[in-house]
């Protein structure tokens, strides 16, 4: 069974704020699901390669040249941001004296 601290740690890594009730509910849910995942312990995988892709494709690359977009498109995309200013997306301070811990 996951501890409350473990749940809060995962939530912080996932950048999700949880209420007290959510922490309790997820503690129970996540523990149950993780217990179910233990079934994989009995799968015989020595010498087996991990499969990241079902279809065997080689990396498909294009030329690394920028595809310029019109000003309209840029404006439309900026418009979608909840906070914007003078054609830029506005965010809170990224570097601040130890506040973002």
């Amino acid at each position, binding site marked *: 069974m996951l501890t409350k601290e473990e749940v809060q740690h995962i939530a912080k890594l996932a*950048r999700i704020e949880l209420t007290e009730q959510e922490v309790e509910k997820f503690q129970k849910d996540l523990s149950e699901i993780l217990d179910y*995942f233990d079934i994989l312990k009995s799968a015989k995988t020595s010498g087996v390669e991990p499969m990241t892709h079902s*279809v065997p494709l080689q990396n498909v690359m294009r030329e690394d040249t920028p595809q310029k977009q019109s000003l309209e498109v840029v404006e439309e995309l900026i418009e979608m941001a909840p906070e914007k200013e003078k054609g830029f997306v506005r965010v809170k301070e990224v570097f601040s004296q130890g506040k973002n811990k």
Partner: protein
Amino acid sequence: MTNQSLSIKDITTGLSQKKFSAVELVQSFLNTIKEKEKNLNAFIEITGDLALKEAKAIDEKIVKGVDLSVLAGVPCAVKDAILVEGQRCTAGSRMLKDYVAPYDATVIKKIKDAGAVIVGKTNMDEFGMGASTENSAFGPTKNPHDLSRVPGGSSGGAAASVAAYESVVSLGEDTGGSIRLPASFCGVVGLKPTYGAVSRNGIIALASSLDQVGPFAKTVEDAEILFNVIRGKDPADSTSVEPQISNDQFLISKLRIGVPKEYFAKGLDPQIEKVIREAIKKFEEAGAHIEEIELPNTKYALATYYIINTSEASANLARFDGIRYGEQAKETANLLQTYIRSRGESLGPEVKRRIMLGTYALSVGYYDAYYIKAQKVRTLLKQDFDSAFKKVDIIAGPVSPFLPFKIGERVDDPMAMYLVDIYTVPVNLAGLPGISVPVGKVGNLPVGLQLIARPFREDLLFEIGKLAEQHAK
């Protein structure tokens, strides 16, 4: 004019013979939608203006004598994870409740070029996470066959809209069964193409190694027509493939159908088993060779799926942080609070659960035990199918162990909900194509037959699906 049983070809004929105009046709579907939606909730957004504009353009082409394209005038509904330019695209989430798509997904460009008329964006489990459409931030969709029951998920709205004659066809998306399950529960045809057959450009991603867009229709023929419009390599999706089309002649007497014993084990509702075995028997009576096969690693499929799905989802949903789009929490003190509060406030419980599971499975100390292990077991599951396809051409079985369940029955128990997808997830893990074709009922509840083929052999799924359809008449 009744729009109940119109097929794509009926519409092409009807329009070219001027039995009705495209505007008249779409108006009648929009009326049906208006009438049924209060009970069904299949749509998050009804795109009436767009539909009428597209229909008008089709009528102008008819007047000019321009040849009708293959989907001209055909009312199509689109799952709300697929971007349609200028229309809201919510992915069933509060996080994107006011997000307007800035471009068309590649599949949407293709259906628009083919003349389809988009009638609305359909309801879904939030970000594709669910098997019942109960995890939508916009209320559940009801099963048209029994309004107290779920339509399946996550593409529940897209399946229900076809089943209720609100649209002729629809586009859904399937990561672990999200087309095949609602197709089975709603009594319509639903295809999950081979991974790579259809472009994922413009689809709000859930799990990038599993997601595929596919068609819903009343008939296999209509599903085939729509699939042929949306398939194809796309430079904007590096995982898309232009396959060789098989020229094999189909002969029922040469067909070998595999029936996996693991898909008929304890847990399968005996009423469903009866319907499925009858459908398989009819193939045998028609001359096919039926053989029991083994897919021995099936018992690991669900755990493998949920580790990979949640891990990939935790990465794909990291972008929903309230900065570039979506809902942003108000009055936060610093950047970290903006992230954690925007996500905490606007993401639903199942989404949070899955992001957290994925974050855990990928974290230091657990990555090998969970994620790498699951990717290895995924190889074993693929090997099971490869071995089976040495002996048989098609695998047949049920879509789900359960009949459409009551709304509220499973939504508070995550594991109970995950078990619904037990026969569909292996197909996504192996990247194979799978179709659900309605073959019977238990009472008034539809039952779908799942057919699985080798990569890029959707043609076989259509041939055998059409047979199953005929047998079920």
